[in-house]
């Protein structure tokens, strides 16, 4: 996989409008109807975080609200989603 640019935790983010999220026992499936790419969220905490993003002015606030201290780990997961256009900046 190519290098992923760092995730801007101070920006607001949300799922791309063409992305559908399907909850699964292991986490969730994401499908992007525009790029026709499928991704997997392998853990329910990330699923909760991704769903909570639009309710917060920035990703850092969403992490804090969810009580997630390991910012680096989750920022990496979010960066991967942003790189594949699953997540976009909230306008």
């Amino acid at each position, binding site marked *: 996989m190519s290098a992923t640019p760092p995730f801007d935790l101070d920006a607001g983010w949300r799922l791309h409008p063409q992305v559908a999220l399907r909850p699964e026992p292991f986490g969730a499936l994401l499908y992007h109807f525009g790029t*026709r790419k499928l*991704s*997997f969220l*392998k853990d329910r905490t990330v699923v909760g975080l991704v769903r909570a993003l639009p309710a917060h002015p920035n990703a850092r606030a969403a992490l804090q609200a969810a009580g997630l201290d390991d910012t680096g780990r989750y920022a990496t997961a979010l960066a991967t989603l942003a790189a594949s256009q699953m997540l976009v900046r909230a306008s």
Partner: protein
Amino acid sequence: MTSTRPGRLVDQFELGLDAPICLTWELTYACNLSCVHCLSSSGRRDPRELSTEQCKAVIDELEAMQVFYVNIGGGEPTVRADFWELVDYATQHHVGVKFSTNGVRIDEAAAARLAASDYVDVQISLDGATAEVNDAVRGGGSFAMAIRALENLSAAGFRDAKISVVMTRHNVGQLDDFKALADTYGATLRITRLRPSGRGADVWDELHPTAAQQRDLYDWLVAHGDGVLTGDSFFHLSAYGEALPGLNLCGAGRVVCLIDPVGDVYACPFAIHEQFLAGNILRDQGFASVWRDSELFTQLRAPQTGGACAKCGHFDSCRGGCMAAKFFTGLPLDGPDPECVRGYGESALAQQREIPKPAVDHSRSLPLTPITRRPKRACDVNPVRELL
């Protein structure tokens, strides 16, 4: 397919999901071509094929189950009179459509219509990078027909069509040519494995890639894998070493399945045989109930032992290979894949085996070519006299 994080997601998938990730839906057994390796032995329409309303009910279920997209095929799906109506119905109900076609109906108007939609993807089947290689398998004129469809799509501004190629002994050497062809039309190359299913059973021995060609194919995929789609078709080649991009597992009845034109649900598109029949959407209270409750799928989702392959050091990468490929070459399901890269398949094939008879066959018994010879003499009596 991409995974956001590597790991043992495969283990989750092998136990099955509440709904398929995607599924193949063959809309009709009717086809204008009669490819020698047709997986579904298509040709003639089946009078029991699902009606428009029944198809729409299937789409409603897929929407409720959040199946993101269906791979529509056949037969030649575009020859159904309600094809476009069903495509529109699916996309309006949040079920994306990828459809496979030989290109027969992709004229300028169809191409323009496709270019206007964000939710429809097109796969043009082509089994040779030249007319000579392609038409030997798919029939005279089929190369020109596919190229015309690609030209129409490209001219209409349709971006990123797929060129779908079944790899055979005669086209493995054309991989670079296929890639160049795809680039010409702004398309993406998709290559899949020749399966001994349907009419493929009759030609598999002569057409499947040789062991040396399999190695070439693997090396080519490792070098070009990122830009080429495979539908996870070649996971059995992962035993060469590096895993190929994708899930690398058999998804049959676990994350994929097939709905056939009469509503029968099979474990995968390569397994149209009663042994892999899970149920019927009309008889068994709809697709969701077949997916969730069928005995066959429950069995497939149980932990598998790996049988004779479990002892092999490569089992973790190839998972014993393709169930359908074993079944239709008469090999035991818990043994090696016929194209096992360690060579265990070859020795298994050399032993006595019984190839199962196809259970469903819609091949045309008469050729479609019009008779141009004049009759030798006029009929003495009207041949349809008794019908009048």
